């Protein structure tokens, strides 16, 4: 029994236990304990995070000539760590006041099912991460898809249901692409074992690799929500019940990235991918994938800019941030890959924190609609603080952790000489800054609504995980070396030179980064600013928010004096016309096409004369067979030949 066995078995048993015990009140505490224990088991494998040997499970299944096996390497460990930490925080978050409210509003069963969905998600993700060959990867993949679907389907609203069904259709399409790719891999390389496939890949020609890469990329990309498969994700995640959205938004889609790194970077190898030229363009396949990543940062981010609901805005950002990771990984040097992989961790922390804050706001006010919020900072200062920390992370501004990974990606793009990609990434970041300000402004700043006058700070049980995550965001921002250790180990595992790093960041001759210094100087600057502000000049006095400049009017509580609708009117005036819903139209066209084909087929099945079909098929089949034997003229000759015989 290896530690991996322990971990998987423990999680599986815990799932069973949670399924059985889901209606009891203590389930919320129980699940926290479960995730703590699972994390402890994972930490027992922490040697992996520092370059240790891969851990194999002693459990194998022999089926249809394939040996299914499971193992953990540094990359899996890194992703598993994120998964379990996020799950732990999520469980903590939903164990207290939020859970009680959810129970009350829906039912004990609904809450229990949420817990069940969470543990099943965690279990399936661990199974996926532990996969030791392509077949077990696929099994894990499908389990993750369906566990996610279960989580999404827990919200009984119509929108959520539609989103869930859309998700599962997309997921199925992706899974089928992967299955195709796996089948082809098996036939091309004669095995599904990672090592043997890796060796077999060397013998394949470029067109084979191209087909495989596209299929895998489509399959995994659908889960990541890359362009043009981004339509499902935001609604699905946003509509997942509160705590579920925290977990899903933070980590679920990243499984796609894991599989992509595993298959395309580790097994196929980016040098092979880069060797494939795409005809009629200047791009090779690696660049094309990088461009997909870049477009994924831009388009969803600017869709997020238009959202008027906090959950949707965050979920769209989730899609966009995935693009950075793909972009980083596709740069293929040690810095870029490090940035891409590290971004998974950073993203998970701030996205979880952001969803928690939004959920906390919903918990207190009952809405996440920007038009119905505002000014909550006086009521919920701690929540606001967590949100500010997280959006600084999301926007990639120092000193939070999001900056470090983005810095790595920019740096790699600079060194790689990819101006357009670099610009694309920056455009994405700028869009992020705009939209996160919209988020924080419309939720917490501005005028407090009358009905929110007596809203209180989020309850402690929700604050603790939020603050915990905020601390992680800051700490790993200041000391990115902690995470970079794991990232470097993961890079070794996937066969890329590890990034050279120290506790504060990157050491590079051509300009490195030391976050400890940067943070120190920034806080020094703030201190100076504070001194200038607080010690010079007179004492300021607080006034009520209605005591405001209003062009001579008196403001009362009846007056809505808050700018939240159509926030970037000027910008939208310019770029609003660029939102053409092309992908939505494309999707609709696809559905219409299927519908049309379906009607055609149905008319066929409604044929008035049954024997007609028999006659038709007999004739066509005979014709096919007889012309396959020779060719059409031979038929005529055959008649003559037969006659003259």
């Amino acid at each position, binding site marked *: 029994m290896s530690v991996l066995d322990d971990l998987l078995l423990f999680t599986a048993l815990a799932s069973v236990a949670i399924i059985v015990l889901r209606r009891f009140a203590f389930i919320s505490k129980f699940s926290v304990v479960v995730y703590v224990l699972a994390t402890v088991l994972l930490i027992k494998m922490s040697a992996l995070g520092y370059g240790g040997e891969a851990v194999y499970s002693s459990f194998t299944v022999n089926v249809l000539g394939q040996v299914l096996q499971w193992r953990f390497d540094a990359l899996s460990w890194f992703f598993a760590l994120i998964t379990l930490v996020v799950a732990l925080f999520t469980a903590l978050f939903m164990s207290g006041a939020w859970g009680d409210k959810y129970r009350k509003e829906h039912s004990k069963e609904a809450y229990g099912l949420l817990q069940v969905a969470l543990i099943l998600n965690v279990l399936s993700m661990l199974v996926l991460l532990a996969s030791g060959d392509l077949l077990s990867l696929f099994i894990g993949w499908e389990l993750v898809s369906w566990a996610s679907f279960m989580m999404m389907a827990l919200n009984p609203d119509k929108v959520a249901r539609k989103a869930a069904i859309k998700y599962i259709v997309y997921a199925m399409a992706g899974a089928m692409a992967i299955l195709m790719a796996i089948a082809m891999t098996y036939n091309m390389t004669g095995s599904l074992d990672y090592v043997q496939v890796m060796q077999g890949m060397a013998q394949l020609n470029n067109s084979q690799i191209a087909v495989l890469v596209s299929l895998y990329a489509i399959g995994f990309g659908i889960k990541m929500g890359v362009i043009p498969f981004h339509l499902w994700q935001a609604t699905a995640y946003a509509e997942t019940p509160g705590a579920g959205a925290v977990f899903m938004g933070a980590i679920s889609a990243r499984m796609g990235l894991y599989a992509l790194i595993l298959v395309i970077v580790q097994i196929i190898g980016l040098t092979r991918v880069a060797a494939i030229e795409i005809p009629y363009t200047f791009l090779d396949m690696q660049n094309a994938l990088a461009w997909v990543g870049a477009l994924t940062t831009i388009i969803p981010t600017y869709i997020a800019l238009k959202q008027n609901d906090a959950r949707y805005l965050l979920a769209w950002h989730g899609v966009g941030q995935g693009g950075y990771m793909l972009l980083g990984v596709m740069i293929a040097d040690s810095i870029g890959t490090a940035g891409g992989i590290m971004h998974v961790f950073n993203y998970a922390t701030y996205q979880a924190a952001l969803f928690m804050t939004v959920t906390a706001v919903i918990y207190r006010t009952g809405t996440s609609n920007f038009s119905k919020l505002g000014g909550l900072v006086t009521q919920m200062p701690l929540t606001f603080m967590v949100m500010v920390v997280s959006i600084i992370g999301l926007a990639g501004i120092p000193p939070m952790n999001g900056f470090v990974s983005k810095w790595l990606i920019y740096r790699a793009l600079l060194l790689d000489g990819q101006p357009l990609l670099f610009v694309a990434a920056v455009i994405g970041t700028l869009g992020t800054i705009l939209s996160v300000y919209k988020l924080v402004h419309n939720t917490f700043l501005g005028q407090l609504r009358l009905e929110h006058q007596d809203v209180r700070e989020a309850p402690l049980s929700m604050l603790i995980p939020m603050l915990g995550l905020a601390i992680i965001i800051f700490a790993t921002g200041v000391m990115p070396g902690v995470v970079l250790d794991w990232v470097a180990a993961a890079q070794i595992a996937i066969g890329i030179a590890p990034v050279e790093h120290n506790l504060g960041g990157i050491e590079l001759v051509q300009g490195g980064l030391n976050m400890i210094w940067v943070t120190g100087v920034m806080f020094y600057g703030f201190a100076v600013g504070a001194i200038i502000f607080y010690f010079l000049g007179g004492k300021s006095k607080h006034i009520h928010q209605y005591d405001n400049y209003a062009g001579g009017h008196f403001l009362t509580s009846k007056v809505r004096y808050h700018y939240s609708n159509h926030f970037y009117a000027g910008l939208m005036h310019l770029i609003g016309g660029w939102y053409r819903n092309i992908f939505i139209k494309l999707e609709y066209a696809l559905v219409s096409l299927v519908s049309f084909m379906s009607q055609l087929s149905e008319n066929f099945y409604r044929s*008035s004369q049954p024997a*007609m079909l028999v006659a038709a098929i007999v004739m066509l089949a005979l014709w096919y067979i007889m012309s396959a034997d020779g060719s059409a003229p031979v038929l005529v000759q055959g008649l003559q030949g037969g*006659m003259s015989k």
Partner: protein
Amino acid sequence: MPAIEVVLYSGAIGLSIIGLTGLLLLNNVFRMLLALVILESGVNLLLILSGFRLAGVAPVILPEQLSNLSAIVMNDPVPQALVLTAIVIGVGVQALGLAMILRIKAQYGTLNMLKIREQLEFDLAVQSGVATPVSAHSPVSLASGRERQLSNHKDEQ
């Protein structure tokens, strides 16, 4: 090539094609059944031709032939047995088809395949609850019933 071969083969195939064409072109179900009979007889003819020998006699041993059995060329008995079986099978199918036609005629009141199909589709839709039944006394015709059913579809989409 002996002329008899051409006659027999084209006769068999001709019968089959006549039957098949009848099946394809006719609308009256009873005539379709008759066309089926013709089709079957054509194929049976082809089947029995497969056991035919140019100089063969019927495979019945007469007592006086017992002595020099090997000298006689007999036709293949197997296809004959097969055709016998096939004919009986055909009778069974035809009887069943006839019974069905009688029942359809009694209740749908028509022998026209197109109308039968319309009515059948409508019945199926009604049974499965996706169409509204039209009462026997309602003035709404069958066609409009179908239209209503279709418009129902549209509304819900």
